[in-house]
């Protein structure tokens, strides 16, 4: 089993090779065979899955991480290395990423079958796989940053997959630029951290910015800087996850990223890439732990994101946008949990969320595909009769995310417990409220899509086996993985698995938290049922339109995404663009002016020299004789002295 751990890098490199094969194959041979691309991709991911499961089995017995590094760059006293780290966190992430990737690749075959960019899609999928797996296996912060950027690039390429659509191209650019803002903060944070700890790293035997030495390094930096500066460094590092995991100020790219194909939304923007931010928080957790203020900021950022996204999701008409805001909200949950100190709870929710959110997106993709690319829920309804498999898996997903007995319930309960343990009562209340809203809007989408009468104009047809099979397979972990790893009733505990230190934390075994969360969720479901299932609506004589009219300002605030996008655009129009105009003028007139001045100087000297070329022979004779006489004069003086 050590073989798999030692060669864990292969898991990441296989997709890279497949990417290169597809790209070069397409450009050199322009082959049409879709099966070739499909089987290459699926086999590489499947091999990755097998290896990941072996690695996971290995980590059951070994708690010390396996690290292997290669020296890469050395300059002065800075030594950068590349390497892999295999510990429990990495193993868990590997399992999640490879399993979800595999199922989505199977799904995409059917979904993208008629698309002309099929091979390009799979090539980008492989590139993304490589980036994500590399990020998970990175052993130091530099390497993580490299793969962080790579994941951003893959996301850009995939969001803008249908690049001929202006909205898709714009969304891709927006995603990349917002991620860039986060990356900028991350890089500055990393560099500041390195700056303050360079002496410590140089005298340490471990590689620079390695995760295994992170706790001690963080302690060193904490001791050698004043607390404010340390908080600044921690928050700058946090800026990366803020962008990547779509937290409050930098979240607007995620709903726009729904312009990409649905499998991409499932893979990147639900299960894996947005989880990279949470993963990074987990990796640099020692840095955050030491700064109480940073943790508070992180927790509250998560809380605000969760709340905001949940309120917006209530009014969304596009099914994919609703799911996107749901993702944003759940990510807020994870970040809030990590900020509050419930490290393992956040990771548990990450894992369960990956499975059920991917499944939800794939279901919505099946619906959209079946309705010939209709995404507006106004024109859906009653699809349970036409697509039963999709409907039931979607129902399982909704139950999971709402926290009703399926896996979401257990992970959310851990988050609530963690919040309570760390005495974050306000956050707990917010979290409960958001959980209720989550239940409400998720079941709203379910009822609008699958119940009632069909309100559209197309002929919905059922999805094929290739589409429904991944859905069914994903339904299994969505349903049971929470329960299977909750740690109660003698089942294996995710919590204990993740805690590398063997300290035992006493859990509050009271039933208060689970009961309250269950009640809140059921209330949400009930409200949704009442408002959106026509049978009950007519029974209670509720007119939905009147109701919306009555709360119009609140409704508009939510439907217009809290006007955040508009604010950003105004900011760009009135602040960013004038600044860039100024900088452009500066560049044109001053920087270019200096260069032109140099050329002008040459021109000027040439002009002066040209004055000597009169074309008159006698002028030349003058200079000739002048030189001669000058020499004579000089020699006379020499002779004299």
């Amino acid at each position, binding site marked *: 089993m050590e073989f798999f751990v030692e060669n864990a890098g292969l898991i990441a490199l296989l997709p890279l090779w497949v990417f290169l094969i597809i790209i070069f194959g397409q450009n050199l041979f322009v082959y049409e065979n879709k099966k070739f691309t499909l089987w290459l991709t699926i086999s590489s991911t499947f091999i990755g899955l097998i290896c990941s499961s072996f690695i996971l089995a290995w980590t059951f017995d070994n708690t010390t991480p396996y690290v292997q590094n290669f020296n890469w760059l050395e300059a002065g006293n800075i030594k950068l290395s590349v390497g892999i780290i295999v510990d429990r966190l990495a193993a868990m992430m590997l399992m999640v990423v490879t399993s979800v990737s595999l199922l989505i690749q199977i799904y995409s075959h059917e979904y993208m079958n008629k698309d002309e960019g099929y091979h390009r899609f799979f090539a980008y999928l492989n590139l993304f796989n490589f980036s994500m797996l590399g990020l998970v296996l990175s052993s130091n912060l530099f390497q993580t940053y490299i793969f962080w950027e790579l994941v951003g690039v893959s996301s850009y390429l995939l969001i803008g997959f249908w690049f001929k659509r202006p909205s898709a191209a714009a969304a891709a650019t927006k995603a990349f630029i917002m991620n860039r803002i986060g990356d900028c903060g991350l890089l500055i944070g990393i560099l500041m951290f390195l700056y303050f700890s360079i002496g410590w790293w140089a005298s340490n035997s471990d590689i620079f910015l390695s995760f295994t030495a992170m706790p001690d390094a963080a302690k060193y930096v904490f001791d050698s800087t004043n607390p404010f500066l340390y908080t600044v460094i921690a928050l700058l590092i946090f800026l990366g996850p803020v962008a990547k995991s779509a937290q409050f100020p930098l979240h607007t790219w995620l709903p726009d990223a729904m312009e990409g194909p649905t499998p991409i939304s499932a893979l990147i923007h639900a299960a894996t890439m947005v989880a990279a931010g949470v993963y990074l928080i987990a990796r640099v957790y020692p840095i955050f732990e030491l700064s109480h203020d940073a943790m508070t900021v992180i927790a509250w950022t998560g809380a605000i994101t969760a709340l905001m996204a949940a309120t917006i999701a209530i009014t969304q008409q596009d099914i994919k946008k609703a799911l996107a805001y749901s993702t944003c909200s759940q990510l807020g949950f994870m970040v809030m949990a990590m900020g509050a100190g419930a490290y393992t709870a956040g990771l548990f929710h990450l894992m369960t969320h990956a499975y059920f959110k991917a499944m939800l997106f794939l279901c919505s993709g099946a619906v959209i595909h079946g309705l010939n690319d209709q995404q507006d829920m106004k024109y859906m309804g009653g699809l349970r009769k036409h697509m039963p498999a999709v409907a039931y898996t979607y129902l399982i997903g909704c139950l999971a995310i709402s926290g009703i007995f399926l896996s979401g319930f257990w992970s959310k309960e851990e988050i609530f417990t963690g919040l309570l343990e760390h005495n974050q009562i306000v956050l707990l209340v917010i979290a409960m409220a958001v959980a209720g809203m989550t239940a409400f809007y998720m079941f709203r989408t379910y009822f609008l899509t699958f119940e009632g009468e069909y309100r559209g104009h197309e002929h919905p047809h059922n999805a094929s086996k290739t589409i429904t099979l991944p859905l069914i397979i994903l339904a299994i972990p969505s349903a049971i993985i929470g329960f299977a790893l909750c740690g109660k009733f003698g089942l294996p505990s995710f919590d204990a698995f993740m805690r590398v230190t063997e300290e035992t934390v006493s859990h509050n075994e009271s039933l208060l938290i689970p009961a309250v969360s269950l009640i809140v969720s059921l209330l949400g479901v009930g409200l949704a049922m009442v408002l959106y299932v026509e049978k009950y609506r007519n029974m209670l004589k509720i007119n939905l339109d009147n109701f919306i009219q009555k709360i119009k300002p609140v409704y508009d605030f939510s439907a217009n995404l809290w006007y955040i996008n508009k604010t950003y655009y105004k900011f760009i129009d009135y602040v960013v663009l004038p600044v860039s105009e100024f900088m452009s003028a500066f560049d044109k007139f001053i920087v270019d002016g200096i260069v032109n001045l140099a050329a002008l100087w040459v021109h000027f000297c040439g002009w002066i020299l*040209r004055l000597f*070329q*009169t*074309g*008159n*022979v*006698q002028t030349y*004779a003058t200079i000739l*004789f002048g030189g001669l006489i000058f020499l004579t004069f000089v020699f006379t003086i020499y002779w004299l002295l």
Partner: protein
Amino acid sequence: MNIEVILKIFNVGLTHYLILGAILFCIGILGLIISRNIIRVLMSIEILLCAININFVAFANYNDINNLQGQVFAIFIMAVAAAEAALGLAILLSLYRNKPTVDTEEMKELKG
């Protein structure tokens, strides 16, 4: 400074011939540079060469009276001067055919 010493200055020797040569050379340079007529330029060149000849022959007379190498060289210079004058005329005629003027101010095709 009595009259005898002053008169001694004017006793002709090598120095005076050399000064004469220098004067002629300067006049030649002057004519070469400030003339507006090309033919005058050619004539000034001949004056230059004559000045040089005076120098050579003066040295031959005062320092080399047995071998007279200076005079031999002056012969050579005269031959070269003749050849050069002939060619100068040929060039002048070519120029005149190109532009029917002998004004040096007009011959500025290579300006700039």
